[in-house]
């Protein structure tokens, strides 16, 4: 009887420890995945912003910019879709999610001197803040991404 109780206790302990470790592993995986996703996504965003020559429209969740070259016209819209919880890079009919699992999202706009820009003509720098949440094994793993202020070079 004593052996049985001890065995049950030990197995329970082992199982819970094992589950805890598994969950921790999944969480670490989630964090690493979200981290790498945000780095790559923000790199893509920053690349287009740096090359922009004009800001057409701006809001906290949408940015419409011109990244045309001398020979190739190109207009890109960055948009946060709260339904799909994705931050999208939209070029023509092509829409590519560059951030996923985004619970909340804000873009902030600044003039060249660092004060807040209120109209597109004033925008010189853009900053992104995103809160990403991934759920797995009844856990919520949250990753906050705050970018640097990307500077539009030729505007």
């Amino acid at each position, binding site marked *: 009887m004593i052996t049985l109780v001890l065995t049950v206790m030990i197995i329970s302990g082992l199982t819970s420890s094992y589950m805890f470790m598994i969950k921790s592993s999944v969480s*670490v995986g989630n964090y690493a995945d979200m981290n790498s996703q945000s780095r790559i996504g923000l790199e893509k965003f920053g690349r287009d912003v740096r090359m922009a020559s004009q800001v057409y429209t701006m809001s906290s969740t949408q940015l419409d910019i011109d990244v045309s*070259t001398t020979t190739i016209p190109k207009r890109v819209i960055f948009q946060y879709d709260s339904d799909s919880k994705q931050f999208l890079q939209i070029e023509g009919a092509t829409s590519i999610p560059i951030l996923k699992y985004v619970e909340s999202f804000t873009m902030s706009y600044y*003039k060249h001197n660092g004060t807040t820009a209120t109209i597109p003509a004033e925008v010189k720098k853009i900053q992104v803040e995103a809160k990403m949440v991934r759920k797995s094994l009844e856990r919520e793993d949250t990753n906050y991404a705050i970018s640097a202020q990307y500077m539009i070079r030729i505007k």
Partner: protein
Amino acid sequence: MNNSRKQYSINQSQRGSALIITLFFAIVISAIVGIYIKLATGDLKLADRAFMYNALIHLAEEGAEEATWALLNDNVDWTGWTEAVTGSKAKIITGLDLGNGKAGTVYVVVEDFSGSNPTIYAEAQVQLPSGKIVSKQIMIELSGRSLFADGMIARDTLTLGGSVSVDSYDSSLGAYNAITNRNANVTIGSISTSPNKVVINGANIWGYIGTGESTPTITNSTVKGPETPAEVTVDPNRISSSLSAQFEDPVAPDTTGYTIDLPGGNSISGTDVVNIGTASGPLEEYFLTADLRVGASATLRVNGPVVIVMDTNKSIDVIGTAKIEIIGDGSLTFYTDGDISIGGVGIFNDTTVPSNIIIYGTETIAGGQTISLASSASLQAVIYTPNANISFSGTPDSFGAIVANTISMSGSSTFHYDEALANFYSGSKPDAYEMNNWLELSDIADKVNLTSYFP
């Protein structure tokens, strides 16, 4: 003895169970630690690479900055550049410390370096600990920019009062005409980032206003363009707080071989007319060792291309009903660090092309030179005096472009910016450049192979 054996037996059994449990835990923990290490290593590599990409952009821009400097200081700062491909300069910058024992290298190429539309390629590279080389390449397309691309720009303060009027026209289409040759393409303002540097009171601006940072003070004035709704007096779309420019101090040329002083001296009076320059003739160069003074009803007439360099602190005065007159294919370029006072009829430009009269202020101390235009004097000229304080009073009518330390206009003076000056360079090459495109060439297909420039 038996008890002792039994105790030994129980201990051996427990040790066995403990060993199994320990082994189990060790395996699980090892596996998890292994996963952690793998994830952490991957994350570290990604973070390191992201850091490097960010740093490489800045390194590439540093290379582009060096190329721009060389372009602006042509024949001076191409030292260290090679020209393996005709018409293109190339340079390698090495040993740029990125921390943690990493050093970056930048390959810079300037295509069409002697033209008006050069292109800069800058590729920054760094070798990661794994041996892999990561790089960033940018391409910057430039076009020449005139020092007079805006209109009337102060380094410090711009003050307009009275009933000043400002607009633009294009001298390549003919003389200014309020109906057929009048536009709203002039920018006036200050590049200063301090507050209250642009004060407009009672002026009518048919164009744009720019400041370095702050909001201009505009009262009892209009700022409009053709697209401005009739009911709007100050169009916010025509006001910018991001005006930026760099104005280098002009330097007078070496005067060796110049003619010393004007024929008959530098003071002209009475009804005297002194002619300099020869129509369709060679450039005439004068070095004036005394003040230039044109008084009474005298005339200094310029018939051909002329350059006048004033000695240190020698002034230029046009008073009474006197005038300096440019006729035919004449042109006049002044270099002076002394004060200029223009009254009387003023500097009369019969060619109606402002770029035929250029005044370079060589003073190097901000505010150390004054230029005044008064009465009803006319001036059709390009004034580049970044350290001079300029004032207009009375009813002078001026055409051209102005760069100065401070600019003050009052009375009912007018200023008409000549849009043709946007393409005017003081020499054979652009005085400045502006970026048309700044592109990060990230795809393999887009990247330009620079190896041919570095044999």
